[in-house]
């Protein structure tokens, strides 16, 4: 039996003075050690849901429980120790006046003792390649550097669950790969549960499970293979398909034979070769 770490039941949410609901009757569970991707069009409710899981909003209807605690005001600090979040805009997250103080701040709050703290701060900044910027003001970094520091801040806390809200959207291709791999290592080796809100379909296609939000509602969920079979339906949801699926389609349209629409580039290239060029 998979262990539930988050349980969301019938949750709706409305911002003050707004007509529409940002979340409508959303229910799903998150399991320990999984990598869950959340995708959906702009304004579909992803960040609203994320902020709720971090205790910044409370459901207008329905219930949420995180790490065994009900999401109510008394439990917010306990919940934030379990679940660390990287915000969509890193500027909203920085509290320290230097990069190292900023990462240390969360640890201090969690009562980590001073000597251990220094080590952890340095180790997490090293993981994201930002040790050359220890004394720079976080707001005075480049976009991608800000995102790296924000991620270090959460890794340092060693939470059970991390929630990344488009946390790598401004990283260069190799930098994104590095940072994702760092988180993946923690996911695979230490059982860290990862919830990643992303518009990057290649990243989503490597998740264990994908949830699709649409207009505040849970549209569908499943393995990446299943989700990306939806194909043209995804366009209407503001989404698209990963490269291999798109390439398969274009090759078929250009008159080449394929045994099926592929999801994986290696399989696609092999199939393309075997059916069209090998004699």
């Amino acid at each position, binding site marked *: 039996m998979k262990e539930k770490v988050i349980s969301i039941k019938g949750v709706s949410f409305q911002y003050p003075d707004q007509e529409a609901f940002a979340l409508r009757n959303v229910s799903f569970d998150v399991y320990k050690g999984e990598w869950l991707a959340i995708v959906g069009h702009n*304004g579909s409710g992803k960040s609203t849901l994320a902020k709720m899981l971090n205790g910044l909003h409370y459901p207008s209807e329905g219930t949420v429980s995180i790490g065994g605690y009900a999401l109510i005001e008394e439990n917010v600090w306990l919940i934030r120790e379990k679940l660390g979040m990287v915000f969509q805009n890193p500027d909203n997250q920085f509290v320290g006046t230097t990069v190292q103080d900023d990462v240390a701040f969360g640890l201090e709050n969690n009562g980590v003792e001073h000597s251990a703290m220094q080590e952890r701060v340095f180790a997490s900044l090293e993981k994201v390649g930002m040790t050359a910027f220890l004394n720079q003001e976080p707001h005075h970094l480049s976009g991608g550097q800000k995102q790296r520091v924000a991620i270090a801040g959460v890794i340092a806390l060693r939470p059970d669950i991390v929630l990344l809200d488009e946390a790598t959207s*401004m990283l260069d291709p190799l930098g994104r790969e590095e940072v994702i791999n760092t988180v993946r290592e923690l996911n695979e080796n230490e059982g860290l549960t990862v919830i990643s809100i992303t518009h990057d379909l290649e990243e989503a296609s490597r998740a264990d499970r994908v949830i699709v939000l649409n207009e505040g509602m849970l549209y569908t969920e499943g393995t990446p293979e299943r989700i990306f079979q939806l194909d043209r339906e995804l*366009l209407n949801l503001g989404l698209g398909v990963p490269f291999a699926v798109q390439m398969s389609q274009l090759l078929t349209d250009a008159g*080449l034979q394929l045994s099926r629409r592929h999801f994986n580039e290696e399989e696609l290239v092999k199939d393309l070769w075997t059916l069209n060029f090998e004699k």
Partner: protein
Amino acid sequence: MDIKLREVEYSYAAGTPFERQAIMDVTFTIPSGQYVAIIGHTGSGKSTVLQHLNALLRPLKGEIEIGSRTIAAGRKGKKLKDVRRRVGIVFQFPEHQLFDETVEKDICFGPMNFGVSEEEAKKRTREAIGLVGLPEEVLGKSPFDLSGGQMRRVAIAGVLAMKPDVLVLDEPTAGLDPRGRQDIMNMFATLQKKNGLTCVLVTHSMEDAARYADKIIIMHKGQVYRTGAPRDIFSDADSLTNVGLDIPETVRFQRMFESHLGHPLDKVCLTPEELAAEVSRLRGEMT
């Protein structure tokens, strides 16, 4: 209107103990009507360069020619309004660009500030909001009550409504959903082709740089590392990985195919469409 940078250097907090040099000896030309992409790893100086293109930052050394204006180190720049009207920048963080109480007022501000009537500004606002795929209902909302991707769209609409000659875009698709990314990138390309706009795009998407750019500039550690046409730039994977970049997905897939084939195709394909056509042509030749 060409834009030329000559040996431009800039440091943040110059003259203080916190001084940090961001770019040096940057020389390049953005020819009128072209689509130029600037790529480079995190912190390589791209956003710093962009802010020189409409004189938001002034060089500590060197000079920038913007049409008939020259902005040189050590000289006070006067009457920059015309430059700001003609060169519109979409910032990397939309939050840095939005300020007014409603989306409509926010977008109208730019054009009205440059002397456009309120009526005309409102008309442009409606057009711009449609171009970025937002419904008219958002006009009455506060820009700060929007989702990240919706804010990004408003910030883009604000610059479009100014009708600049040069569109400067700092990672304009970060935060857009995949469909929006495609639609909005195509919209920029149409403006460039049909209306003769100059486009300068900073992006981490090698795919977008490959598909849209006439010319690519690679920044590395505050300097220009290489410039060239996309086909040349993306033929050389090693020089890209050396500076933390990568080849586009299409080129990676082409290389995988070529390793089966045993020899390279005639050209590096810049889009999946181009590669599919090339592979199909090859099969025709072989059978």
